């Protein structure tokens, strides 16, 4: 018997092509999220038509870009059943460090600033990676520790200091204010990174290994995957993205101090979870994660636009997160059930 001779016709009876189940499932989850997003925008616009103006869309995209980037980085890590809580601290320290560089070297080219931010992120990502792979420290513990340590170091270094927009060169500010064909540069940068990451995860062997590791670490090892190396790469990616996000944060907000981005790690995890990235690993896409970040971002701004009392905003957001997770899971289950039933009768 030869293996998979592609000339051999399929033996079994059912000739009709079944829909691509894997793709179908993934698509349907993202499709729902997309529908939710559209519904949110539509509902808000119905009450407040001016919600749909260009300026506001720009703002929403700008807001979501940074969280969206972080969420995508978190996705890579979460796919492997890990988590990176240190991202917020990395953003903070990278933003301040790059800002200080601008204070010292006002003529520094923008690309150097980006590389510096990415470099800082890579360094902290490497520490996380080493702790997790070599030190065998569970990622939640390791990154919770680095969250504290990096933020503490940031505090100790910055103390009461502050970088203001005035210290930043105009070329740098252009990242946030400039645009190409009406799309803000910052959004374009985020988009490029997101697409690259998405292609990596879907189209490349290395990307698929992240899924394999999260799905079954033991089996991944047996399949010859170098798990340690891949986990390391995941944390480097997440760190680098957080570093870049720090630079973008600086460009967008102009003012950074010791507590910049404090606490956004939970927002990022929430966005990923809303975006159908499983905390238990193996499931999720960058598209989903980005949609998750968009949904949360739109809710955020919609509540303000709809003049919901600030005291209610957080409660509503929390309730919506819980509802989103629940609905998403129920939907995934019903799809799985349908699939099973089909097989039973197929």
């Amino acid at each position: 018997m030869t293996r998979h001779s592609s000339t051999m016709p399929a033996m079994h009876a059912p000739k009709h092509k079944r829909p691509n189940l894997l793709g179908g499932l993934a698509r349907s989850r993202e499709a729902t999220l997309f529908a939710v997003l559209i519904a949110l925008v539509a509902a808000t616009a119905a009450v407040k038509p001016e919600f749909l103006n260009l300026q506001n869309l720009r703002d929403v995209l700008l807001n979501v870009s940074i969280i969206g980037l972080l969420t995508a980085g978190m996705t890579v890590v979460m796919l492997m059943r890990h988590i990176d809580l240190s991202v917020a601290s990395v953003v903070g320290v990278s933003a301040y460090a790059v800002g200080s560089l601008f204070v010292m070297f006002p003529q520094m080219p923008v690309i150097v600033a980006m590389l510096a931010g990415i470099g800082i992120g890579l360094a902290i990502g490497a520490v996380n990676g080493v702790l997790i792979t070599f030190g065998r420290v569970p990622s939640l513990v390791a990154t919770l520790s680095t969250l504290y340590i990096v933020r503490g170091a940031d505090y100790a270094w910055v103390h009461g200091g502050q970088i203001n927009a005035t210290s930043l060169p105009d070329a740098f500010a252009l990242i946030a204010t400039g645009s190409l064909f009406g799309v803000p540069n910052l959004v374009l940068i985020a988009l490029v990174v997101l697409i690259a990451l998405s292609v990596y995860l879907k189209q490349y062997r290395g990307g698929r290994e992240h899924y394999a590791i999260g799905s079954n670490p033991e089996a991944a090892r047996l399949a010859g995957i170098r798990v340690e190396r891949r986990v390391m790469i995941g944390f480097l990616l997440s760190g680098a993205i957080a570093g870049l996000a720090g630079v973008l944060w600086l460009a967008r907000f102009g003012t950074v101090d010791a507590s910049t981005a404090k606490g956004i790690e939970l927002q990022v995890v929430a966005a990923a979870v809303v975006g159908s990235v499983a905390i238990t690993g193996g499931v999720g896409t960058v598209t989903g994660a980005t949609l998750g970040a968009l949904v949360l971002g739109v809710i955020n701004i919609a509540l303000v636009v709809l003049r919901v009392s600030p005291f209610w905003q957080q409660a509503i957001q929390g309730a919506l997160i819980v509802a989103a997770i629940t609905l998403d899971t129920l939907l995934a289950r019903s799809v799985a059930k349908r699939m099973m039933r089909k097989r039973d009768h197929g």
Partner: protein
Amino acid sequence: MTDNKPPRLELRHASKSFGRVRALGDGSLQLWPGEVHALLGENGAGKSTLVKILAGVHQPDSGELLVEGIARRFANPAEARDAGLAVIYQEPTLFADLSIAENIYMGRQPRDGLRRIRYDAMNREVDALLSTLGVNLRAERLVRGLSIADQQVVEIAKALSLNANVLIMDEPTAALSLPEVERLFAIVRALRERDVAILFITHRLDEVFALTQRMTIMRDGVKVFDALTAEMTIDAIVSKMVGRDLDTFYPKADVARGEVRLSVRGLTREGVFKNVSFDVHAGEIVALAGLVGAGRSEVARAIFGIDPVDAGEVKIAGKPLALGKPATAVRAGLALVPEDRRAQGLALELSIARNASLTVLGRLVKHGLISAKSESTLAADWGKRLRLKASDLDAPVGTLSGGNQQKVVLGKWLATNPKVLIIDEPTRGIDVGAKAEVYRTLADLVREGMAVLMISSELPEVLGMADRVLVMHEGRISADIARADANEERVMSAALGASPQALGRAA
């Protein structure tokens, strides 16, 4: 097996220890092209450890590995794979969240000029491969939700797709029923024709004679014997494996049938099983036979309250049982030894004693608090009765060999002193010695008046142990055969149902 050529694969005096546990003391093996080679030994003899050394999962503490006569050292499974070794491990090693095709091609997906994965080519090849295996599975289907048998098929497909010249299979048939085993054998024979060297581990000795040409027997981590299969008998093998002769294999005692202990009426779960009704009496072993995927385990799980049912009722010793809560079932006197011991039977990181006491926590309470002493006494008692091979009852149960793990699961349920014991694949993956002990234990239990429902895919065990054989086919009970009338043909034809096409479907 030409004299001047080196063996395809040779392991010389390999040893391996895990902490203080010496899993392999002196493992040796020669594997020639074009042979199917049986590796035999009791549970814990070190077979899987040897396999993992060959596969590059473990590095031996000492010893030599030669491929085509050249000394090699595999630092990881990828290196072994690249050297032409394909391995089917004892426990399925699949990625539940990925498609079948990706499982098969992980790490070596076909790529285009930009090094991107070519999903279309990959899926096409896998579909072709699956259809040569005669299974109704599609390449793009997720592995999550596949039955154990289907998972095993995917493992086999994975190994075949490697086009390796050494194929190592660690108990590939443990989860398969007869037609699937036959199909696997046909594939293995075809590979042998193509000069592939095959190492085959099993605890079913009839398979050894049906398939293999040579064998290596291990005991306590040491190779004790090798021979041509044609020169051996079952008794000879068993005595080499166990180091002594075994008494009667199926110690079926004739016990007078008592009152009805378990009564199931009209049990239905949409799409899984339909209108299942039967009784099990005290002092009786009722076997539930059928093909893998017939829905037997699902019936057991439903009775025990793990899965919901759509209709039907269950009585334990005449009292109606409220379905849906395992705790209620246990209180009513029901015990279920599940089919997948690692996933369902044991908490692998917890100690043997802790696992054994899990079902009887409530009974260990003295003065409102759990007494650690009665816990370890309990574990020790049952360990002794089942001849558990463990160095330390406080060691994590995951460090035991498969068969010994099964004994812990059995012991933990016998400790509840149940009225009805449902036992799903009681001897899956355990050695002949342990099997004999399980059979003896079952015989003792029914003699003491227990009612036993035994789900089994092994026909000899069904015919040897059961007072009555119920056969399931596609979710319905298709036959109820008394011991006297039970034979292989009757059970198999009932299991296959009327239509012969059913043979083509594994799931």
